[in-house]
């Protein structure tokens, strides 16, 4: 229902940084020689994201994403690639968990510096119907990491 509070939440959700990532996504495109490519779909809206990952030992050496979707899923994917590239898997797993906690509404997680600019997506927790969008790329990343470990 409409309220000034809700307007503020909308403003927080669609802040400049998110729209910037939506319009000018980082690390978008295919990755030649990716070890893992995972496609995740949200049947409700038809969105589809592919995450391509290269590993170097216990580190993600490179990561890109492709596909289309709403501003939240695109911005989240874009930020995710920036955040995890070059980092060791254990650290990424920590970040992924914290990100998930943040969009599920955990305030402390939303202030965790390890999330870097992805903290801009904290506002999604106020929009239950959009949490799935924010997690799409991260879920794909998790699947890629699990597949790599096996």
């Amino acid at each position, binding site marked *: 229902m409409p309220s000034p509070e*809700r*307007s503020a939440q909308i403003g927080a959700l669609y802040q400049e940084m998110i*729209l910037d990532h939506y*319009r000018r996504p980082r690390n978008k495109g295919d990755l030649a020689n990716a070890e893992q490519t995972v496609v995740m779909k949200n049947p*409700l*809206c*038809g969105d589809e994201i592919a995450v391509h990952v290269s590993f170097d030992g216990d580190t993600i050496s490179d990561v890109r994403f492709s596909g289309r*979707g*709403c501003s*939240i899923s695109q911005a989240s994917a874009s930020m995710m690639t920036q955040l995890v590239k070059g980092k060791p898997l254990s650290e990424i797993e920590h970040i992924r968990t914290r990100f998930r906690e943040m969009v599920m509404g955990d305030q402390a997680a939303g202030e965790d510096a390890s999330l870097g600019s992805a903290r801009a997506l904290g506002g999604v927790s106020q929009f239950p119907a959009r949490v799935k969008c924010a997690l799409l790329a991260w879920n794909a990343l998790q699947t890629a990491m699990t597949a790599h470990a096996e």
Partner: protein
Amino acid sequence: MSWKADFPLLVRNPGLHYVDSAATSQKPTVVLDAIRNFYETANANPHRGAYALSVAATDAYDDARQLLARFLGVADADALIFTRGTTESLNLVATSWGRSNLAAGDEIVVTAMDHHANFVPWQQLAISIGAKLRICELTADGRIDLHSLASLLNRKTRVVAFNHVSNALGTINPVGEIVRMVRDHTAAIIVCDGAQAVPHMTVKFDDLDVDFYAFSGHKMCGPMGIGGLIGRRALFDSMPPYQTGGDMVEFVHDDVTTWNALPHKFEAGTPNAAGAVGLAAAAAYLSAIGMENVLRHEQALVAEASERLAAIEGITIYGPSSADRSGVVSFTLDDVHPHDLATILDGDGVCIRAGNHCAQPLMRRLDVSATARASFYVYNDTSDIDALIEGVLKSKEIFGHAVA
């Protein structure tokens, strides 16, 4: 002018602009009262008791069927089967009629605009039986392409299934013309999905000359969990039952069972009498308004909404001109994803739907992953359009800032 005051949810939430009635409608007080009244004065298992309360329940259930049959122009009221809704009705036909009548090589025609409920059951039937699913394509403005239809009809065609009104585009299909074409060139049964027609316009089954017609209560001011399937008696009589159990049997021997007469044969188990009573109250409510008035009201709103949306730069509207359209307008705004549009509009209390509208085959043909859809009903008025337009402009502004 609108009938908003009859709808308690909308009265309680004056800031709410509910324009998602194609998904489900709000319920007027008379419907909620009818359901409650059934439970408080006539609740018993219909058809099963020899006592007065059970007779009252049976009468309430039968009366609901009679009223619905009159509302939908069905002279043979027992050929109106209560189901859970359109989806169940269409599955019933595809399973019961389809599995006992179709063979490998037969052809089933559906359209590219059909809802998954009138698409997937036929596709799966075709797969399981080795029949061929043929998809009738659409014109650029979202109508059934009658040339495409003509090219698909032949003597192998055994089923032609299409929606009366499209939930994704609002297109009102020319049933008479389609039926003539099908009857002229095939011996197919005609299955019409009326989920978006019955709530919004006059429907008289006996005049339509289709073989089966499905609808849902929750989209026509009625309760969830109830709907109907109307069919020709001769077809129903020739079909095996869909579900078996209590009420629908005659004699249950250890090794074989005989079936009860219509409508019972297709209503296994304890009927949803309270749901039927609520649905009948909804039909009575709509009748009192007059279905011509309902359609006129919606078309006026959709015409205004389309015009004002079209005036916004970056808006694309899908589907035919308003004259052939019920109260639905489907659109996109530049590269603003429909989900983002819906979220921003929701912030101002405007409830639109964003998604594929259970019509993925259509979305592929429109080459979009989703659209935004506003759909109007008797409780909407110009203030809802104002809020919709304002929200779209706001979205444009929010996203506009970010344009490189």
